[in-house]
């Protein structure tokens, strides 16, 4: 091999080495960027509130995360007034509060499949009741305090259910 050839090979080797470093670095950057963007959990500052990304909650898929209390959702979404039930948070205290706000409530043992009335479900171990909102296909749609609006095929067993037949909301 002549000196010229060996020098040329050496130059090619240098170029190849730098090219390989550049290529590996780029694809490392690309993989990291793609992962960050594809798994983006950043909240969005909306016009009226912050939208958090959906997540898998304690009872199902939280499709509209809202770190509210059940009192919050009844107040903000349904206009129930009066500041909330007296403590301790018993079904009776909730019923008293709702009745005072002119919203009928009735304790039921079990809600039938066909019953579309909104209801508060007192799940053991929870400081506040869940608010059952309706059905979407085969899934139940319910509000879990501290998490948000949740979709799940099944409901956690409730110790007490308060049916709220007069509580209605507009579709849009």
């Amino acid at each position, binding site marked *: 091999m002549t000196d010229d050839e060996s020098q040329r090979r050496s130059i090619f080797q240098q170029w190849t080495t730098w090219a390989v470093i550049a290529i590996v670095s*780029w694809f490392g950057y690309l993989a990291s960027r793609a992962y960050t*963007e594809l798994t983006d959990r950043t909240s969005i500052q909306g016009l009226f509130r912050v*939208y958090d990304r959906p997540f898998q909650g304690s009872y199902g898929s939280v499709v509209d995360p809202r770190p509210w209390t059940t009192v919050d959702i009844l107040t903000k979404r349904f206009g129930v007034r009066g500041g909330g039930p007296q403590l301790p948070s018993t079904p009776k205290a909730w019923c008293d509060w709702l009745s005072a706000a002119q919203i009928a409530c009735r304790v039921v043992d079990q809600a039938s499949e066909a019953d579309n009335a909104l209801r508060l479900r007192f799940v053991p171990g929870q400081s506040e009741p869940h608010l059952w909102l309706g059905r979407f296909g085969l899934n139940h749609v319910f509000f879990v305090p501290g998490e948000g609006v949740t979709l799940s095929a099944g409901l956690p067993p409730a110790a007490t259910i308060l049916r709220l037949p007069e509580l209605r909301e507009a579709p*849009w």
Partner: protein
Amino acid sequence: MRLEWAKIGQTRNQRWCLSVLSGLLNGAAFIDFGILSLIANVPLLFALYRSPSATETAGLGGLVGLLAGFHIYGIAHYGWFLLLAFGLYTASQMVVYALLFRYLWGRGQAWLDVLLPANLWALSEWIRTVGPVCMPASYVGNIADVGVLNPWLRLAAFAGGLGVSWLMALVGGLFFHWAVGQSQHRRWAIRFALGWLIVGVLGGLNGPTPGGQPVKVAAVQAGLANAMYAAAEADSGAQRDIVKVFESLTKRAYAHDVDLVLWPETAIRAPVLTDENLGHRLFPPAGSRSHLLAGVIETDREGRRYNAVAVVGPGGRRGDVYRKTRLVPGIESHFTAGETIHPLTVGQLKIGVLICLESVYPDAARRLVAQGANVLMVASNDAGFGRSPITHHMLNRAVVRAVETGRGLIRVGQAGVTRLIRPDGTIDGTLELFVPDILVDTMQARTQLTTYVRWGNWWLYIVLMLVSLSAFPRRSPSINARVNEM
């Protein structure tokens, strides 16, 4: 000792390394650095030039396509298989590119060799616009926001976006032939380089003529993630949130006394056109001079659902409707495709509406302008692509549509990016991704027709003719023999 270009790619490892580098450059040009489109295929050309077999040639080309295709990773939001399918699709195109280069280079005259890489690239881009899914990747899309290349972009009014992509691909071909070619190739490369500069100067001088009736517009961008729409399907509370956002922003837009208020694609997925209460809250009030172009889901009497943009006048007076004709396969299978592409009429004004994917196809905007559209609107919802580079590239394709047709174009994205684009491809106003706001600006209603609108993709026929000419043998039969001669 300086680098000898003609010796690059002599070893197998070098050739594969060059191929990977080309894939990287093409990908980087797509996601961040559009100007790299000018040289992205140069390493591949070196590799192909030295490739000893058709199998290796095909592999080198395929690898470039595969790696470049993976840069469009935002598509994975709709499923990983789509990303893989897209990578394989682009790989197949680059296999064809590489094999055609192998068999055609050196057969014809030297000047045809020098143009061959640009011709083959233009063909591969054109193929991407054929069929039900038009892939957004293109050199013209890459460079649409590169200010220094704007003079060449303006030539889209003459030769279409495909012609501009051809010009961008030409640069790499010129460099390659200057670096490795025989003296004839070098001479032609220098001549074409001069020609390239001259047409750029001409492009810079030949902008659209000013004038046209002013049209004041307000684009409404809700800035919502698609997850919010998914939640709204299950929960009326989320639906009411969406309506409330649009109600607030739309009323703000009416207060600006604009001619047109523009909603993005399927802005509110409730019966906006038939529900009196919604109409009362959202439509232009009686006595207003504004017309709303509402991106809605329209249901006809037979229950068919359309992805549509409907004109609603003051007091809720219903006007014309445009129904999306090119639906995204699979993702929009719950919609029925509209039958005709036609501009919407508002008074004397004709508005060419493109809904999302339709703006990626060059022919839809051209047909709308040929039918008299004075301004163009792209109603879109790119929230599904998140912050990935596809959103940015879709935006750039709208820039190309504006230049090709010589029309002002407003792109209204549900989540963003909302942007007003002038007919020369420059940007007038922008709302960034996931920002709820309105964009108020003035467009010019224009009537002049560009060469591209009149003649369409005539550049494609030139390209096809040149490729055919390249196939006529004038010199030695095999690329290896041809390479060894040098």
